């Protein structure tokens, strides 16, 4: 069984993101790009399934400009067998991403898609679900545990208030939550090897999908800053402040 893992490049989560001068986007000059952390978890889970003999091949797919190949190479350095880059210089929203990924899925004989529950840039949390609906497949989102059976996947999901377990028929789409696993670091020899792994390039126009974003960003602003508070000297002073000023006790 082949597993398809979408990989998105995002700004480093430790970077402080700032709005550009005309409020149309973010300042990208000094940004370090990384693999979206949830996608890294997806790559790790796919590799584990391959190592356990439950999958034969792990293929990573990215959508973006030439540069985003770097993040695919990183995923291949972790151990993915090959990559596909769908090239575009345009902004891609969740809707467009799901249309592209649906076409990629149809071209290969994949038994499973594992992908991040959200990307830490747009924070939309939509693509896995959109993709599942487009392909008429079941989804198991926010996974903290994944077990493959005979034609099924049993997935424990992180939901409000607890954990829910469902069993879905495969092929299906699994979206990853934080506790699914701890991704490995790409080893140095892996980084060398990744450069020689096959990478297929596809122009987005060749997929024949609607590439009009459904969400238009009109402007970006920094969030309002919270007025600075103060330090209190003791627990007694804290309780007094909570009682007399904040009136929460």
């Amino acid at each position, binding site marked *: 069984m082949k597993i398809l893992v979408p990989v998105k490049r995002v700004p480093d989560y430790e970077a402080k*993101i700032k709005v550009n001068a005309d409020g149309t986007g973010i300042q990208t000059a000094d940004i370090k790009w990384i693999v979206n952390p949830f996608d890294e978890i997806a790559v790790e889970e796919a590799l584990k399934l391959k190592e356990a003999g439950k999958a034969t091949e792990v293929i990573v797919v990215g959508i973006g400009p030439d540069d985003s190949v770097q993040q695919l190479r990183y995923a291949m350095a972790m151990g993915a067998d090959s990559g596909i880059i769908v090239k575009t210089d345009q902004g891609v929203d969740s809707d467009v991403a799901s249309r592209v990924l649906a076409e990629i899925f149809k071209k290969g004989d994949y038994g499973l898609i594992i992908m991040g529950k959200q990307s830490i840039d747009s924070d939309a*949390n939509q693509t896995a679900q959109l993709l599942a609906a487009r392909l008429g497949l079941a989804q198991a989102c926010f996974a903290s545990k994944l077990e493959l059976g005979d034609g099924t996947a049993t997935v424990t999901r992180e939901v409000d208030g*607890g954990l829910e377990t*469902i069993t879905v028929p495969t092929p299906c789409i699994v979206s990853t939550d934080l506790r699914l696993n701890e991704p490995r670091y790409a080893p140095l020899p892996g980084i060398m090897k990744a450069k020689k792994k096959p990478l297929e390039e596809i122009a987005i126009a060749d997929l024949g999908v609607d590439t009009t974003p459904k*969400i238009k960003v*009109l402007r970006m*602003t920094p969030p309002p800053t919270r007025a600075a*508070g103060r330090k*209190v000297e003791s627990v007694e002073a804290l309780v007094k402040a909570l009682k007399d000023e904040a009136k929460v006790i």
Partner: protein
Amino acid sequence: MSNVLVFVQQTDGEVAKVSRAAVTAAKQLKDKWGHDKLIGLCVGPSAAAAADKAASLGLDQVFYSEETSFQNYLAIPHAAATEQVAKQNDCKTIVAAATTTGKDFMPRVAAALEAGQASDIIAVNDDGSLKRPMYAGDIFADVEVTTDTKIVTVRSTAFEAAEPSGTAGSTAAISVSVSGPEVKFDNYETSGGDRPELTDAEVVVSGGRALKDETTFMEVMGPLADVFSAAIGASRAAVDSGYAPNDWQVGQTGKIVAPNLYIAVGISGAIQHLAGMKDSKTIVAINKDPDAPIFEIADFGLVADLYEAVPALIEEVKKAKA
């Protein structure tokens, strides 16, 4: 004239507070985007009772189904019901709370209706655009959904919960036709015990990596939560280290909370954590590092060893309440 549909989450016939906030957002969208009626949908056991309560929140009509497909939450039947009600009632705007339920099934509705979705909105702007956080809340974006049908999920802490008002609307049972892959619900395990839901609680006490291990975490945070009748939260670092379950995680990748009082214990205040709690009304930080970023947003900061400060705080609060 087209209508607005709001998906109303319910448990045991009670409308979830998060959905009452979604109703408020739906009303604003109805006015701003010139829709005619506000329509609701409730599904699951006791959906009929919940529909009555939802109708009293100022909805014109509430549809409900208690059919077996809704015995437990599953994405495909929920999406099917929402799609069906939207189509049959000319609903061009569809709203739900951005809970793990709304986040899970609403994009399926978007795909089925060729609609764009704005996730997790925090405001409806004067010009009709929607405000939503991006990049862990480092950026607020004003976005426009360009499709005819629009899907919106709502960050419930950013909108007042709707209260019963005026004449209650009508309710009607519906039969939902569900197709697609067969998904089996196996089980649900709750992790919060008797404590309030994180996103609903008036007070949230959260612990960070300074709590050392799972046992210490509960020994320190449990009694603090008890004295405030609070929900317990955790930083991502604490969750990653296995001190607390993931659904306690407060932050960009976890829960977004905005309680009356938020007490951060041994939390340094990484951007991704702040994104989940900085809209709380009063923020207290207890940390022994005076330079911890959490102090920059705390109303009241206490530089102290948490193992001394927390037990002392519990005693003082008991005294103050007595």
